[in-house]
């Protein structure tokens, strides 16, 4: 594995990008407005694209440049554009019924990061990777996944839930870029198209909700229909 003997500059660049994307997922967790949410997600995707280009440059994987380009186009432009269209059509600006106030969810998110930190350092110690960028990437990956789950759990708006799913997926993608940079191109492409399918099916769901329930909040979906 190349991650164990990176030069210090590359390691600090990777860690900076990873940590800033974690910070951006916290921005998403702490903001009230759906549009801020979307901007943070967009920026995060751009950073992840940058990260895969950097990994490609330092580890000499040619195909990662292509993946970086696809990431920026799909996650950084196309998906935010599609979601923005849904937001415009809905005129829902913000999360109306918050289960957890933004500051409390920040603190819960921070506790989740501590949990991820402990898991990752335990794993890193067992694999003999302590002190390398791999442990950091593992921490960031696990904590972004947990934050995605948290966002899915505490938000009701359909849009927030799409974005929670996308953050979750961004976390996995970020981790995979650093941990297994030579992942076949085909799998990456499949993942990107999967995301597109996720967003499209969610927008169908949103339309259905609007037509039949009258609101896009999942709080209304309590009744079981057999």
């Amino acid at each position: 594995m190349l991650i164990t003997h990176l030069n210090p500059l590359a390691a600090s660049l990777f860690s900076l990008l990873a940590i800033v994307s974690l910070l951006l997922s916290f921005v998403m967790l702490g903001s009230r407005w759906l549009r801020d949410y979307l901007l943070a997600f967009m920026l995060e995707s751009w950073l992840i694209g940058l990260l895969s280009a950097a990994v490609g440059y330092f580890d000499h994987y040619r195909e990662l440049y292509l993946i970086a380009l696809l990431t920026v186009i799909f996650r950084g432009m196309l998906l935010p554009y599609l979601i923005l269209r849904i937001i415009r059509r809905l005129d829902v600006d913000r999360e109306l019924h918050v289960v957890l106030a933004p500051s409390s969810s920040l603190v819960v998110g921070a506790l989740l990061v501590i949990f991820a930190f402990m898991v990752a350092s335990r794993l890193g110690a067992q694999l003999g990777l302590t002190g390398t960028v791999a442990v950091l990437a593992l921490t960031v990956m696990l904590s972004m996944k947990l934050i995605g789950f948290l966002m899915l759990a505490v938000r009701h708006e359909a849009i927030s839930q799409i974005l929670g799913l996308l953050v979750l997926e961004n976390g996995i993608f970020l981790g995979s870029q650093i941990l297994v940079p030579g992942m076949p191109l085909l799998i990456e492409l499949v993942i990107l198209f999967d995301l597109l399918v996720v967003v499209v099916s969610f927008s169908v769901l949103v339309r259905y909700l609007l037509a039949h329930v009258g609101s896009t909040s999942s709080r209304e979906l309590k009744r079981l229909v057999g």
Partner: protein
Amino acid sequence: MTLRDILLQIAQVVTVLLFAPLIQGIILQFEERIQRAQGPGILQPYRDLWKLFHKQLVVPKSASWLFWVAPVVAFTCMLTVPLLIPVLTNYPLPLSDMADILGGGLILTFGSFMILLAGLDSGSAYGGIGSSRAVMLGILAEPALILVFVGITLLAKSMLPFVVNHLLVRQPAVYWGPAHLFLVFAFFILLLVETDRLPVHSSTHIEVYMIEEARILEYSGPLLALLKWTAMMKQFILYTIFCNVLTLPWGLSIQGTALGAAGAAVALLLKMVLVALIVVCVETAQSRLRFYRYQEPLAASFLLAILAIVANQLR
């Protein structure tokens, strides 16, 4: 322990004592200037202190001995902390090993705890409100502060401010690393909160949302002057820690000559003016948060400290 070291140590305390009102004056004057007003001049805090020291002392009937003791104890705490931190020299002076960063934080907190008791002591409604609000803020700020200390400890493998200073000067890779930068941001938010700056509460006098001023509303004359001076010194000390330990660790006296110490004092003032400019910009751009949203900047600070700890994993 030489005579020079003792003199330097005294010089550190005197620097904090004398220049604390100057920094306060500079911040207030800059703010006025940014708002296109004339401003009272940077020496106004000195004139205020002079005036208050020559005023009559009025003591409420309900006040106990605590009312008299609290300002003196708080002032003494602020005189003690400069012994422990690098104000002028970048090497430990004879009494600097009395306490580490946590110890210094404990002394600072003890000073504000005494003022808090004094606010409750006279039994006035405003003192009680001020004290309870201050405790609330303390409860919110303390976890973030502890985590910042943990982050610093993990970064430097030591709790002594001098070690942190040396590490940051010697290794630019650590200085520009994410762990250190996140610690700086986390500490900056705490700095704003602890020195009464805007996103949380401004230090305007007599109004409904006052916190710091409400605790000392009963005081007058020389005791009030002592309390005001204490607040300014606390601000100066926190700025010193922020500049000399965390953000701008350069420009301290290495050999401890008289010229070097004087140069370090000037450099410290320049660094503080730089920090003060940033603080002034924040204060001008930010509006005050509602009381029930005070936890938001502090939650952000908590979070940044945790991210700094996570980023420490790299090394």
